[in-house]
């Protein structure tokens, strides 16, 4: 799964080489879930300690989503990991019921007008 022919490339100043995420997910590149980038991740309990199958990144996710739920993209940004890697880690956490992930309302059933009005009024008040 690692790309021996590819140099580890630095994607930008604060991110690691792109080969590392595959090691973190123990070679699993494909997650079972297709969570939306704004799916909300919430911890269901306090962060666990390390155990088999639970690495530091798993623990960091549970810790991050303790106080308030974060969008999956926010989790990825805070951890400095690609979305695909975070998806795999979320699979692990869900299997252990350490987080809850809530998908947003889908496009076909847009939120009702009250949501739009709240957004418009909220933006005006910023």
């Amino acid at each position, binding site marked *: 799964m690692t*790309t021996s022919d590819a140099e580890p490339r630095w*994607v930008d100043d604060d991110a690691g080489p792109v080969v590392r995420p595959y090691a973190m997910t123990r070679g699993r590149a494909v997650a079972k879930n297709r969570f939306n980038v704004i799916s909300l991740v919430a911890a269901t309990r*306090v962060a666990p300690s390390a155990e088999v199958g639970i690495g530091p990144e798993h623990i960091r996710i549970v810790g991050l989503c303790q106080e*308030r739920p974060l*969008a999956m*993209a926010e989790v990825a*940004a*805070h951890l400095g990991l690609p979305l695909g890697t975070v998806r795999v880690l979320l699979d692990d956490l869900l299997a252990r019921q350490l987080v809850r992930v809530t998908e*947003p309302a889908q496009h*076909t059933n847009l939120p009702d007008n009250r949501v739009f009005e709240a957004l418009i009024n909220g933006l005006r008040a910023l």
Partner: protein
Amino acid sequence: MDYERSDGDKARAAVLPTAVKILVAGGFGVGKTTLVGAVSETKPLRTEELLSEQGVGVDDISGVESKSTTTVAMDFGRISFGDDLVLYLFGTPGQDRFWFVWDELALGALGAVVLADTRRLADSFPSVDYFEQHGLPFVVAVNCFDGARRYSIDEVKLALNLDPEVPVMLCDARERESSKDVLITLLQHVMKGRGAGREPASVGS
């Protein structure tokens, strides 16, 4: 200890906020990240999607070499309205060949802002085409770069061959008030479309 625990339990039991998102699209260097940063509560966050073997099963990825790993960066910001509503703004990746990522970002979006620079109007064609094809409501915001020739709104509408109902406005993505106006115009446009009973097609299908 007990106090901490019950506090945490309360947070975890709380009702989740409603999360919605808006896309900010447009050509390279048109001001997408600037607009996201101008209205968001923190400086724009950044995440990446790696396109490699994981992307190959997805049909939209033609044009991306299947073997090498490509990184597609996305900037986004967050605006919370109280505890129960949060708006995320996602800048689409500049390279429009990454339709796979566009589909992922557009899925479930309320609508989109297409930023345009009148010096390079053609750079907005792919964004306009994409949102038209996917039935995602959008507005066009002409970012007023210094020294750029000012085109009239009608000239822009004509050049982009826009549906007459698509709002076109001028903006300065560096200004919070101006960027707020763009988002409010988009939300009003989306609401109006709903009122007319126009069912948006679901993106990605």
